[in-house]
């Protein structure tokens, strides 16, 4: 071993998590103790958990916001909130849930799980991974600082102009929202880039693209989608900020085009719907078969349907704009694509049903959540199919029917899957099981509360109740239904609270899980629970999609090599493999823990603070310091073989 070695034949070592090799890897990969060590950590498991916890905090905050305005809406003519407070609260609720909870929680699961299911030791860019987490956290704080200053967004999470333009909305409310979104966009884009590189370049040898876990198909698909979709919304918000603060004319009269906002927003917005559900769908496709004791039915069809859904998702944005007076030919085309997209979604649905039908299901909490997910998935899908039709949409648009639909989609397709996934992967993350009895209560309260709370919205919508109103007169036939909705939302909140209780109980008292409590098939279950900092003591070589089930499935003549492999212990090293057939082609050097990502994220946030108050000296200072930090970050290093010694 020399510091200048340029080529190496990988050694072989047995898989033993108690060997000297394991202690050596532990020293190389472990997060250092102390506060600075914690802040500087680049371990994907550490960062993944931070993402999940932060996203759940935003979920609870967004939930409390909804509970407050549900009291206002429980009876007619309520004045608990002023119209202005109501506007801020429902806008914050939407923004928090869709932007700061729904995607980041999936990112958290992906950051934690992807390197484990792919058989590697970290994300491709560990420091970037830490950076994207910090920027995500700070962008959320930035938004909530706006709320604390009484300048929270108040034009809905979709933020339509001209209401969001300065003449009609002169405070800093929309500017906080615009800049927080740009900051979050930086995090989302860089995070997606990291996933693409990790999944295409660091899979374990032998894990060809058709042996990749279905979980990775979801993450890969939406990450590529994000690369193309994110710039649209970031640009939309940037142009809005220019319009509001520098007098440009993108959206504002006389020569601006208000509809340009809707185009740019929904060209991102509809792909985003799939971005925040497809990874959740793929978590179900990964975990549900394990609980049905068989491989997923129709792996190839589900993988292709995932990709097709994302691709079609770029061609349906106009269905958010059916009522804006666009030409009929455009309406017809986008309506057709919106109806067609049901087909790939149904493929996954039938694959899950067939998996349950032909399997031997274990009726535990995770399974209940997945089945609940399938039921609300179908209801939300059908109401989406209805609004995809132009004549129906003209009746339903801007009514509570749309509110019902989008909550069935976002809670049903995202939160129920996330809850099931939490019960499923919690034992891997913490080495202890969540409690089943509490879990049943958790599920049934959430499932009943959700349906009681959101199903009647379909009816109030059909009865003509408009969205976004802060109160309503009595005698419209909406009173009883709204009271039922509020009761349902509190039942659901009680269920959510039980989950929090269960997590704390599980962390302290949960039954010890062992490496593979569900007897699952994929690589993450071949490591101890929780996994050591280096994940795999030796890198596995794969021969199938289900390395831990090969003997019992007996599908082919070849078996995966899990009991010995390359140790890669000459530093922090991982294997780089080819994108399609996963042949090893390089030994990659990984950077150590670093405080620079946190510092850079702080400087970037400070820069955005300078932008909102127009303190140009601060902006310029932050630019200079930020560039210096990036230079330090990127300076070629001998240890990483980026330059000559």
């Amino acid at each position, binding site marked *: 071993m020399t510091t200048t070695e340029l080529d190496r034949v990988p050694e072989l070592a047995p898989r033993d998590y108690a060997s000297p090799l394991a202690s050596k890897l532990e020293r190389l990969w472990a997060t250092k103790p102390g506060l600075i060590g914690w802040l500087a950590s680049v371990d994907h498991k550490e960062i993944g958990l931070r993402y999940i916890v932060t996203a759940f905090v935003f979920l609870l905050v967004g939930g409390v916001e909804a509970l407050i305005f549900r009291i206002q809406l429980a009876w007619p003519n309520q004045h608990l909130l002023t119209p202005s407070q109501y506007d801020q609260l429902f806008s914050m609720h939407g923004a928090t849930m869709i932007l700061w909870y729904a995607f980041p929680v999936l990112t958290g699961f992906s950051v934690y799980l992807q390197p484990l299911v792919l058989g590697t030791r970290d994300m491709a860019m560990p420091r970037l991974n830490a950076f994207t987490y910090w920027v995500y956290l700070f962008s959320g704080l930035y938004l909530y600082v706006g709320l604390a200053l009484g300048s929270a967004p108040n034009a809905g999470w979709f933020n339509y102009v001209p209401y969001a333009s300065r003449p009609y909305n002169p405070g800093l409310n929309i500017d906080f929202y615009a800049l927080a979104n740009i900051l979050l966009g930086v995090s989302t884009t860089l995070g997606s880039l990291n996933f693409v590189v990790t999944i295409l370049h660091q899979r374990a040898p032998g894990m060809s693209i058709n042996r990749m876990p279905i979980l990775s198909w979801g993450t890969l698909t939406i990450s590529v989608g994000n690369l193309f979709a*994110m710039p649209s919304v970031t640009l939309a918000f940037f142009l809005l900020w220019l319009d509001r603060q520098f007098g440009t004319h993108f959206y504002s009269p006389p020569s601006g085009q208000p509809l340009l906002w809707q185009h740019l927003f929904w060209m991102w917005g509809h792909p985003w719907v799939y971005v925040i559900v497809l990874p959740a769908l793929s978590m179900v496709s990964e975990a549900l078969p394990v609980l049905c004791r068989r491989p997923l039915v129709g792996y190839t069809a589900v993988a292709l349907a995932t990709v097709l859904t994302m691709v079609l998702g770029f061609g349906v944005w106009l269905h958010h704009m059916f009522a804006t007076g666009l030409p009929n030919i455009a309406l017809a085309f986008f309506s057709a694509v919106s109806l067609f997209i049901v087909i790939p979604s149904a493929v996954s649905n039938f694959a899950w049903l067939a998996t349950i039908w032909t399997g031997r299901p274990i009726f535990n909490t995770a399974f209940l959540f997945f089945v609940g997910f399938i039921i609300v998935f179908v209801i939300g899908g059908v109401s989406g199919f209805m609004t995809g039709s132009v004549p129906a949409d003209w009746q339903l648009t801007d009514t509570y029917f749309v509110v019902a639909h989008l909550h069935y989609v976002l809670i049903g397709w995202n939160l129920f899957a996330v809850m099931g996934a939490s019960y499923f992967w919690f034992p891997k993350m913490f080495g202890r099981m969540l409690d089943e009895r509490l879990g049943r209560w958790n599920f049934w309260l959430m499932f009943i509360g959700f349906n009681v709370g959101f199903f009647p919205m379909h009816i109030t919508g059909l009865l003509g109740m408009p969205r976004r109103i802060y109160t309503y007169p009595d005698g419209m036939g909406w009173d009883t239904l709204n009271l039922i909705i509020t009761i349902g939302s509190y039942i659901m909140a009680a269920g959510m609270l039980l989950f929090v209780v269960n997590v704390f109980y599980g962390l302290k008292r949960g039954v010890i899980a062992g490496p593979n409590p569900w007897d699952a098939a994929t690589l993450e279950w071949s490591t101890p629970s929780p996994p050591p900092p280096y994940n795999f003591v030796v890198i596995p070589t794969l021969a199938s999609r289900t390395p831990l089930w090969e003997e019992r499935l007996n599908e082919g003549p070849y078996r995966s090599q899990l009991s010995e492999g390359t140790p890669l212990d000459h530093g922090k090293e991982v294997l780089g493999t080819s994108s399609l057939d996963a042949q090893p082609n390089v030994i990659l050097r990984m950077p150590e823990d670093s405080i620079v990502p946190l510092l850079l994220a702080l400087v970037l946030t400070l820069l955005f603070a300078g932008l909102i108050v127009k303190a140009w000296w601060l902006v310029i200072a932050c630019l200079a310091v930020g560039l210096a930090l990036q230079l330090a970050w990127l300076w070629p290093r001998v240890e990483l073989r980026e330059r*000559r010694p």
Partner: protein
Amino acid sequence: MSTVVAVSRRSLPVGSVGSHAIGWWGMICAVLTEGALFGYLLFSYFYFAVQPRQIAFPPELPSLWLAAPNTVILLVSSVAVWQAERGARRDSWLRQVVGLGSGFVLGVIFVGVQLLEWQSRPFGLSSNAYGSLFFTVTGFHMAHVVLGLLILLALTVWSALGYFGPRHSAPISIGAIYWHFVDAIWLAVFFSFYITPYLGLRHGP
């Protein structure tokens, strides 16, 4: 009877090597998303250009006197950076430093000429929709050029320090991808704002 697959024992390069480097993959993804950004910017431009009325596009055709030679300057800078990349692969210190350095200088000239071009415009960022579009889109491109210049400057210094050679050329290749991208995007911006009016896309009130 089943066989356990063999672990590959092929000799492998270590570290940041050519198109196997993490940074190379990262830059390809970055270029894709930045390309999409310019796609949306130009979408906005064409969205305005096809509106039926009331959008103030300038009455005269855009002048090519500065923009056309400037385009050539930018393209030549790409050739220089490409030469530097070849220089690193062939272990020529001089070709690296001269290639990157002249790419940098040509880029600075482009920025200077572009500033003159901005000054010669009779409208500003907030005059009307066309002014907002013109300065925002070319401004976004300028910001990318400036970032590219900082990258070229860092690479020139690192090359001069003798950091790079045949087995250590990945940083130059990664920087070069970005610079070629910035040049390619300029062609799209140039075509949209300077050529399409001559092809009959609207100009005038």
